[in-house]
């Protein structure tokens, strides 16, 4: 098998100009912005298909981090000196970029956290726990990442409340009428993912919000996976909370975002206590700073926020509509390729999905797949993807997962295909 799917498909047809796909998306120019994509792994060009775990960073982000430390490093919201002023402008300016990126109504609704996990924990601690009484319910879906399960288990256990789970079908789609049936008088919060990290399923968030709000139930959406694949408008979706993480948005690790509707954030108690989150402190009583600082205790991840701001600028420059079209083309191409390979079965084939190719190979454990394709320079994830209930639902211990980002190409998927044939060769 030396001909690639691309070769067969395009035979006898006019090929698009090198580096430009059918939609005119210039992927080679984008690739040139990501220095790590030039490196080799085990003597082969790196084929990075583990984007659902973390994405690579464009030069613009690396430059922003270097510039911050070489030119402006200072603490924020404290000093009257020049550097502190510039650092504060950079940090809060990044917040405005996040606000614009998610179309929130106000910067007061954007809280910087460490990651999406911390964003969800903030809501579990400061919103859910006070709202939950014995017998109340939190409703999640069966496709959640552990980060959108465990915080609710902890909150429920603490309050004597119950975690309910809306089921998914055999293709990995949420069963919406069963979800609706599980919305009860005792439901105090719905927490669902926008897009499954293990299956690629994109949930009908606006519809979920409509059903929940009809019963006055607020909705938290875990946007870790969705935010770098498709435009997200928190006001149009109507969500009450939206969690995202910087390192999947082509930004640095250690910086996350929580969007919360101002009215809800306003009446929530603080999450962590310390400096910056207070208005005044005496030994008898402290009062809280205004939004969003009430939720940002201690010196924040200043360069992380600034790096994230640079990443969002980069994404917006390319355009999320163009990115999602490009990735949809790759997803379709990769799906056809994997479906045509003997012994390969895709896990997660919902009609509405994005950028994730989760699969298993007959008689071959995903861990062996991962090791062998790695030696071909192809980086994929193998394991349970921090979604063990999803693995149980599909009756597999683990899957192999190739996940896409804006800089991936059809040629890289061909390289994955060749590496998978190697797996067959080695393990026969």
């Amino acid at each position, binding site marked *: 098998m030396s001909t690639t799917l691309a070769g067969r498909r395009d035979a006898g047809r006019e090929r698009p100009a090198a580096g430009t796909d059918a939609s005119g998306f210039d992927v080679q120019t984008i690739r040139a912005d990501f220095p790590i994509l030039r490196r080799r792994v085990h003597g082969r060009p790196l084929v990075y298909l583990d984007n659902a775990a973390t994405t690579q960073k464009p030069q613009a982000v690396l430059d922003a981090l270097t510039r911050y430390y070489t030119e402006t490093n200072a603490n924020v919201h404290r000093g009257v000196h020049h550097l502190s002023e510039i650092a504060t402008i950079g940090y809060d300016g990044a917040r405005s970029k996040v606000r614009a990126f998610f179309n929130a109504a106000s910067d007061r609704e954007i809280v910087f956290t460490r990651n999406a996990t911390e964003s969800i924990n903030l809501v579990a601690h400061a919103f859910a726990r006070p709202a939950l009484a014995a017998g109340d319910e939190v409703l999640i879906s069966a496709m959640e990442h552990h980060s959108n399960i465990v915080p609710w288990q902890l909150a429920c256990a603490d309050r004597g409340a119950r975690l309910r789970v809306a089921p998914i079908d055999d293709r990995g789609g949420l069963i919406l009428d069963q979800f609706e049936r599980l919305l009860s008088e005792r439901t105090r919060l719905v927490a669902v993912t926008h897009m499954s990290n293990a299956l690629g399923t994109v949930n009908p968030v606006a519809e979920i919000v409509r059903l929940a709000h009809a019963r006055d139930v607020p909705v938290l959406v875990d946007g870790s996976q969705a935010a770098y694949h498709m435009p997200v408008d928190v006001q149009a979706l109507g969500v009450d909370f939206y969690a995202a993480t910087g390192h999947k948005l082509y930004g640095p690790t250690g910086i996350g975002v929580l969007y919360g509707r101002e009215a809800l954030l306003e009446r929530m108690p603080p999450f962590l206590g310390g400096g910056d989150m207070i208005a005044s402190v005496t030994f008898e009583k402290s009062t809280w700073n205004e939004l969003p600082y009430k939720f940002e205790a201690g010196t924040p991840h200043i360069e992380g926020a600034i790096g994230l701001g640079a990443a969002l600028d980069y994404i917006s420059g390319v355009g999320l509509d163009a990115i999602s079209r490009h990735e949809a083309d790759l997803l379709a191409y990769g799906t056809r390729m994997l479906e045509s390979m003997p012994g390969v079965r895709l896990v997660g084939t919902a009609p509405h999905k994005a950028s994730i190719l989760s699969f298993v190979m007959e008689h071959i454990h995903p861990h062996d797949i991962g*090791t062998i394709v790695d030696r071909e320079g192809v980086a994929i994830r193998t394991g349970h993807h921090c979604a063990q209930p999803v693995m149980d639902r599909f009756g597999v211990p683990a899957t192999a997962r190739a996940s896409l980002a804006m800089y991936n190409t059809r040629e890289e998927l061909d390289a994955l295909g060749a590496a998978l044939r190697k797996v067959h060769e080695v393990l026969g």
Partner: protein
Amino acid sequence: MSNLNELYQEVILDHNKRPRNFRTIEPATHRADGYNPLCGDRLSLYLTVDGGRISDVAFQGSGCAISKASASLMTDAVKGQSLADARGLFERFHRMVTTPPDQPVEDMGKLLVLAGVREFPVRVKCASLAWHTLKAALDRQPEVSTE
């Protein structure tokens, strides 16, 4: 590629495809379950210990080629051994797979095929799972995890 061939040697591929002693023992005098949360490998180990000697040993479970072959090779290796010898073999195996890849290892006969995992640090746990489970069974710990 040479490293890959060292990892997936014929003996390992053979034991992966046709694992020896792949069954249960009911009732067993000793048993333990092993779990590697990183890759979801699970195995149950069953022993019949008779007069201080392992007269029968078997395993069941699902896992990658390395963990399955390692479990299969281990059951062959410890069958008939005294408990003291089996514990000694655990120690020697553990030493072999944790020796840096550029240093020589003791000749452990058939088990030497698993020395190739040293080039693949994340796979050492796959090779060790069955052995840790054996130790747990002998120490009478019902469940062991390699994380």
